[in-house]
C-alpha cells in the first residue's frame, strides 16, 4: 500500500496539466493478475518512459491507454483511465475513435503491404479526415515530414512500404500513426528491432515529437529512457513501484528495487 501512496503524492504535486490520468488500474488475463493498482498522471507535450524487467506489465499497461487490450478476448481492465478528463473506458467512448486520438507504434515495424503513400493515407481515409485528394496529399506529406522521412521517400511514394530499411519502416509507422492527428503517441519498444544508427534517428524523432504530442514509450534500455524521457515509471511484477522525473529516477531513486534495476542488478 505504501508504494501507491507515494505515487499519489507525486501526482498531487504535479502542477502541469495531465493528459492522461489513470487511477487504480487493474488488468487480468484470465486468472492472471497482470497489472495491480497502477495510478499515474501522464503529462502533455513530454516523453514518459515505462521501464522494468520483462513481464513486469509495462507493455500491458501501455495497451490499456488506447484500449488495444480490448482485442484480446480474455483480457479484463478495471479502474479508470481518463484522457483530458474523460474516462476512455466509458460506454460512450468508441475505441475506434479513441485509437485515432491515441496512436500506437509497435516493437517490430509493421508497415502494411501497400505503397508508402497508402500506408500513411490508411488512417485518414478510414476516419474520413481528408475532403479531397489534395487534402490527403497534404496530410501524407506533413506526416512524413514530421516523421523526418519525407526527404528520403518523397520520390517513391508509390513504392511498397515493406521495401524500406528497418529504421525507415519504423519511422513510416510513426508517420502512419501521426497521420490521424493523435494527441498521444504510445510506443512499445520502438527501437528494439533496429540497429544503433536507426535507433538514434528514431530517438531524435521522439524528442522532436514531444513538442506537439504526449509521448509514452516502453523501453528495455535504460540509456534510452534516460536519453529521451522527462518522466520515468518503474514497473515490477505488475506494480508501478516508482514514478518521477527521469533525472531523479536515474540518480536518486526512492525505491531499492528501482535502484537495483537501474544499476543492472536484475532485469
Amino acid at each position, binding site marked *: 500500500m505504501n508504494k501507491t501512496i507515494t505515487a499519489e503524492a507525486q501526482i498531487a504535486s504535479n502542477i502541469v496539466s495531465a493528459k492522461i490520468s489513470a487511477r487504480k488500474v487493474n488488468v487480468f488475463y484470465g486468472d492472471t493478475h497482470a497489472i495491480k493498482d497502477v495510478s499515474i498522471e501522464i503529462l502533455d507535450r513530454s516523453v514518459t518512459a515505462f521501464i522494468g524487467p520483462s513481464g513486469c506489465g509495462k507493455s500491458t499497461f501501455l495497451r490499456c491507454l*488506447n484500449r*488495444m487490450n480490448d*482485442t484480446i*478476448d480474455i483480457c479484463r481492465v478495471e479502474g479508470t483511465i481518463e484522457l483530458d478528463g474523460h474516462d476512455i473506458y466509458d460506454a460512450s467512448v468508441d475505441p*475506434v*475513435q*479513441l*485509437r*485515432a486520438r491515441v*496512436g*500506437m507504434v*509497435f516493437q*517490430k515495424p*509493421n*508497415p*502494411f*503491404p*501497400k505503397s508508402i503513400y497508402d500506408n500513411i493515407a*490508411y*488512417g485518414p481515409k*478510414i*476516419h474520413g479526415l481528408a475532403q479531397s485528394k489534395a487534402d490527403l496529399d497534404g496530410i501524407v506529406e506533413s506526416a512524413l515530414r514530421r516523421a523526418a522521412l519525407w526527404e528520403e521517400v518523397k520520390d517513391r511514394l508509390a513504392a511498397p512500404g515493406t521495401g524500406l530499411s528497418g529504421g525507415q519502416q519504423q519511422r513510416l*509507422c510513426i508517420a*502512419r*500513426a501521426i497521420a*490521424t492527428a493523435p494527441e498521444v503517441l504510445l510506443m512499445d519498444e520502438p527501437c528494439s528491432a533496429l540497429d544503433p544508427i536507426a535507433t538514434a534517428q528514431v530517438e531524435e524523432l521522439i524528442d522532436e515529437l514531444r513538442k506537439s504530442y504526449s509521448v509514452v514509450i516502453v523501453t528495455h534500455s535504460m540509456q534510452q529512457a534516460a536519453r529521451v524521457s522527462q518522466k520515468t515509471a518503474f514497473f515490477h511484477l505488475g506494480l508501478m513501484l516508482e514514478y518521477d522525473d527521469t533525472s531523479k529516477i536515474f540518480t536518486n531513486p526512492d525505491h531499492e528495487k528501482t535502484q537495483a534495476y537501474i544499476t543492472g542488478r536484475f532485469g
Partner: protein
Amino acid sequence: MIGYLFLVLLLAAAVGYVMNRATARAAIAGGSARFHSLAGFHGAYALLLTGLPAVLFVLLWLLLQGSVIDSIVIGSLPETEMAGLDAGRLSLIEAEIKSIARGNIFGTPEPWKLEAAERYNSLRSIASVALWVATLAIAAVGLYVARSRISPEFRARHRVEAITTWLMIACSVLAIFVTFGIVASLIYESIRFFDKVPITEFLFGLNWEPQIALREDQVAGAGAFGWVPVFLGTIVITTVALVVAVPIGLLSAIYLNEFASSRIRSISKPILEVLAGVPTVVYGFFAILVVAPAIRSAGAALGIDVAPNTALAAGGVMGIMLIPFISSFTDDALSAVPRALRDGSLALGATRGETVRKILFPAAIPGIVGGVLLAVSRAIGETMIVVMAAGLIATLTVNPLDSVTTVTVQIVTLLIGDSEFDNPKTLAAFALGLMLFIVTLALNLIALRFVRKYRELYD
C-alpha cells in the same frame, strides 16, 4: 491358394531369421572372432533374402499369368474359326471359353471351344504348380545364400540397411509410377480413340451423342463425339457450385477468424469439417432426395420451368460440399497474416471489418485464390454428385435451370457395365478422362504455386 503361398513364404522367411540368428549367436558366443554385425542382423539378412525375391517373383508372376495364358489359348484356337474375326468377336469367344472352363456351360458350344476350355484349365493348373515350385526354389536359394554368409567379417548390418534403403526408394518412386500409369493408360486409350474419331472433331465438335450401335442390328444414332457441350455443362455446374461455396465459405471464415469468440470457433470448425467428411455419394442422394424436388417446387411456385435434374441441384449441393474446403483455406490464409499487421490497423482506429477488408484480405488473397482454384479443380473432377443428380444428355446451354451433363458423368455412364476396350464409346471415356486430368492438373499446379508463393511471403 495364393494366400497359402504367401503364408508359406512368410513362414520360410521367419525360419530363415531364427536359424541365421541362432547360428550367428552361437558363433559369437563361441568367441572365435569378433563379429562385425549383431546376430539379429544376420537373421534379418536371411529374412530379406528368403522372402523378398520370392514375393517379388510371385507378384510379377500373378500380374502376367492371366494375359500369358489367355494369349496361349487364343493362339492355339483353330485357324479356320479365327479367320476374319474382329477384336470384339474374339473377346466374346475368350469370355465364353473362360466361362466354360469355370463349368458354366450354356447351350452346346462347339467342340473346339470345349477343347480350348480344357486347355485353359490344364494351363492354369500347370501354372499353379510351376509357381509353387519356382517360388519355393527361389526362397530356398535365398536362404542357402544367407546361411553360407555367416562369418565374422560379413557386414550383415550394412547389407540389411542397403536393402531396406532400396525398398524405401522403390516405395517413394511408386508415386511417380502411379502418375506415369495414369498418363500412359489415358494417352494409350485416347490414341486408340482418336484413330476412330478425329481429334479435331472431339475437341471442337458441338455434338455429344455417344450411344452408337454396338451391333449392326441395333437401332441407334450414328454417334457424335464433340466434347464442347459436355465441357460447357461441367463449367455450368462448377460455376453454380462456386457461386454457392465461395461467398459462404469466405464469409464464414472471416466471421470465425475475426468476430467469433474462441468458444464458437472451437465448436464451429469441427462441424464444418464434418461437412467435408461426408462421402460424395451421400451428397448425391441428398441432391435427388431433397434439393432437386425443393428447387422444382420453388420454380413451380414462381412459374419457372425447371428441368428435373437441373444444374442448380447438382451444382448447389456440390457448393455445399466445397464450403468447408474454401473456408478452411481462407481461414489458414487469414491466420497466416502476421498479427502485427492486424494490430497495426486496429491501433490506427480501423474497425475489425475495415481491418479484414483493407489489410488482411488483400494480404491473404494469394492463399485464398489458391484455395479457390483447388476448389474449382475439385468441382470439375467431382463425380458422384453429378452422376446422381445431373443429366445424361449433353445440351449446348449455359442456363443452370436446364439439365446439363458433365465430363465425369459421361465417363461413368460410358463405362458402367461395358468393358469392351475396342469401341469408340468406351474409348471416348478415356479421352474425356485425359482432358479431365490435364485440366485438373493444370489447375492444381497453378494453385499450389499460389499457395507456396504466399507461404514464402510470410514465413
